[in-house]
């Protein structure tokens, strides 16, 4: 159905993709760092 091309053939598009990916993964990193921060225990762990 579609013409499948490799984005590496398009330098500008590749750089946009890399930049966008960095920003998206930064969002994931900031959030997961908060989710997985040490030193705080769950309510169940506190009861134990």
């Amino acid at each position, binding site marked *: *159905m*579609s013409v499948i091309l490799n984005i590496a053939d398009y330098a500008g598009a590749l750089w946009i993709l890399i930049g*966008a990916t960095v920003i998206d993964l930064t969002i*994931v990193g900031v959030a997961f760092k908060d989710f*997985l921060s040490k030193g*705080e225990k769950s309510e169940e762990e506190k009861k134990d």
Partner: protein
Amino acid sequence: MQTLLVYKESYSELTKASLAVLRNPDATMQWYIIPILLIFIYIVSKELSEGHVQAVLAGAALWLVDIWNEIWNSYICAVSGHAPVWGTPPGSVEGVGLAGQSSAFDILIGYNIEISFMFFIMGIASCLMLPKDKKAKILGINNRVFFALVMTTLCVCVECFLNYANVLTWEWSFWQRSCPWVLWIIGYLPFFSAAYYTYDRPTVKKSFKTVGCLAALDIVGIIVGICLNWI
């Protein structure tokens, strides 16, 4: 309303078909979008009236991260001169066997009004299902991480089905059903990460700040896109 994306002969047939209806309500608007708008207003009003302000802000966060992705998707279409990474072309594109469905309003090259409402509501819903204790563990991992992974996986499955049904088109080799992990990491994990992070901010004010940062990112992206005719 005029499209800013400049028409290029090198665009794929699907992209050309999408451009024909991009921000063109004269050709696409349908009545069903009005009840959807009212359902959206009802959901947001109900959650706010019940004090779930951070759930609504989390919905906004997910929605804004999606808009960010939609903006760079438009950039890639314009810069490559080939196609967006994902597209939502109108039905009945000659020679490509698309289903007959069309959006009521295409906002960007791969982004329509239905997707917009859907992501905002999904952000709210995905937070309401979270345990109250943000540190609680499920199967040995933090529940926020667990839900982000599960919701991301479910969404990628739905995306693959939409692509299979030809209402969501993928024309780049790295963004295909054969390599769903790319969609998983770039496409959806940031959405739920941002939503849950916003939801868990210690105060509503901090949640607002998070949403403000994401909105600023989108505004800059839109301004750049308009200036360069990339959206």
